[in-house]
């Protein structure tokens, strides 16, 4: 009897699993269908001249452009070289911005006097439209890598800083008190209680801030440089090459999605203690 009941239960679970898999397949198919419909109608509208291909480009031409850039090269040189340059600027700005954001967030979150003194200045600095700083950085630091890194840095820093600061402020007082009772000194409280507590906030900010790093690098290149994806866009714009602009945009989107994937992987690695998504899937 018991084994019968067991078999019935197993069957139920198996059926539920199949249902979940079917649903996933359906979602995938619909996603692809969506892309086909969007790109297809763009292509058709452009070919029938319903929309002007000069202004709106054409998916097949964009694909061709990327193919030519990848095989023959871009006006600025090999494509991978442009990607590498932009990535290098973005990653440097991202790394330094994240590091500084965490350190300042923790410091101001933990040291009240520091927060009281510096708080207004940080708010003021944050209210400057930061992309404008790109021009200043190029005047200060020239057309090379440092000015792009600086712009990516300021964009990333504030996002991470405010998240880290908020994360520190949200830490449960009693959790800290518990650690102190258990013998943790101030440094141990900061590194072993406050930082892990704030980590969910900090990592959440990485998702948005990598996008900002990329924006910083590309805008910097756009304003003044001699290579990189941003310069490629500027060049395409200058020659009224709509497909070129779209092609560079597409490459940037792929990079951003790849980074998003890596950050999610990092998040899952660092925050293993969180209830996993699997727990939430209803069978």
């Amino acid at each position, binding site marked *: 009897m018991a084994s019968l009941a067991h078999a019935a239960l197993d069957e139920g679970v198996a059926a539920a699993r199949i249902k979940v898999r079917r649903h996933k397949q359906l979602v995938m198919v619909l996603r692809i269908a969506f892309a086909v419909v969007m790109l297809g109608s763009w292509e058709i509208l452009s070919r029938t001249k319903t929309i002007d291909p000069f202004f709106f480009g054409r998916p097949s031409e964009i694909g061709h452009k990327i193919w030519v850039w990848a095989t023959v090269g871009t006006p600025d040189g090999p494509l991978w070289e442009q990607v590498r340059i932009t990535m290098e600027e973005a990653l440097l700005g991202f790394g330094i911005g994240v590091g500084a954001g965490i350190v300042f967030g923790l410091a101001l979150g933990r040291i009240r006097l520091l927060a009281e003194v510096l708080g207004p200045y940080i708010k003021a600095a944050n209210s400057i439209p930061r992309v404008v700083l790109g021009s200043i950085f190029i005047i200060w630091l020239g057309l090379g890598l440092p000015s792009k890194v600086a712009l990516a840095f300021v964009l990333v820093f504030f996002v991470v800083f405010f998240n880290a600061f908020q994360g520190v402020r949200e830490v449960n007082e009693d959790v800290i008190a518990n650690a102190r009772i*258990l*013998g943790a000194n101030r440094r141990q409280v900061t590194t072993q209680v406050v930082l892990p507590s704030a980590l969910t906030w900090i990592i959440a900010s990485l998702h948005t801030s990598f996008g900002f790093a990329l924006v910083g690098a590309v805008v910097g290149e756009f304003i003044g440089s001699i290579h990189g994806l941003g310069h490629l866009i500027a060049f395409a714009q200058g020659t009224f090459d709509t497909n070129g602009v779209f092609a560079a945009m597409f490459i940037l989107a792929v990079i951003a999605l790849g980074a998003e994937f890596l950050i999610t992987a990092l998040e899952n690695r660092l925050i293993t203690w969180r209830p996993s998504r699997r727990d939430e899937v209803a069978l």
Partner: protein
Amino acid sequence: METAISSERVTAPGSGATPAIELVGAAKRFRTPSGDVYTALHDFSLSVHRGEFVSIVGPTGCGKSTTLSLISGLAPASAGEVRVMGEPVTAIGKQLGYVFQGDVLFPWKSVMGTVSAGLRFRGVAKREAQERAREWIAKVGLSGFEDHYPHQLSGGMRKRTALAQSLITSPEILLMDEPFSALDVQTRTLMEDELLELWSSTSASVVFVTHDLEEAIALSDRVCVMTAGPGTVKGIYDIDLPRPRHVSEIRFDTRFVELYRDIWENLRDEVLLSYERAKSNG
């Protein structure tokens, strides 16, 4: 290994040694956001002897948690004296365990990491800390759950983890703030029995805060009844029930019922007062 000495446990009130904990006319005032001063605790005097188990009962908001924060050194008294082992409290006590009212387990630490945390903070090497943690995890009945995270544990298991976390540092003073109030009745009775057993193999002096008079009588050597806020001592009762006790059975003891009636007589007015106030405040 410790052996249980529960039956001939010596609690020797006034046996010459200085009390483990002494509060003399202690008060605690808070500044409210509107700038007023709110008195949470007022002229509070109590001493706890070494190895004694004292419960504090009182209506919600009467200052029980505040009292524990003064003893622990987490917060300074606004007036009066607080001494632990004869020394005025100026910082967080080194030989002190504190089981908090809320859930304060680190969500990112496994049971093993949580229980060994106190030793690790105090500089004990990882291997040794983990070995000792393993023993304590076994003592609270959580063997096999070493790698579980708090979100994977039931309420009772979380409290057991918290208890092991506090006891592993062999505290001389153990403060417990309504540790079992969030548990269901069955789990709670089990945990109360386990607490008595664990305590009997230590020499810790315990201050146990609760709003449940039954729990207070069943566990304690003395029960301190507090007035509705601002809290002060309304009465202190000796609980002359023999040990070892079994919490699930002792409730039917005639002496228990007598004590309950006496103390409740005193506590009831405070509870009603507190209730009336809460009602009139909306």
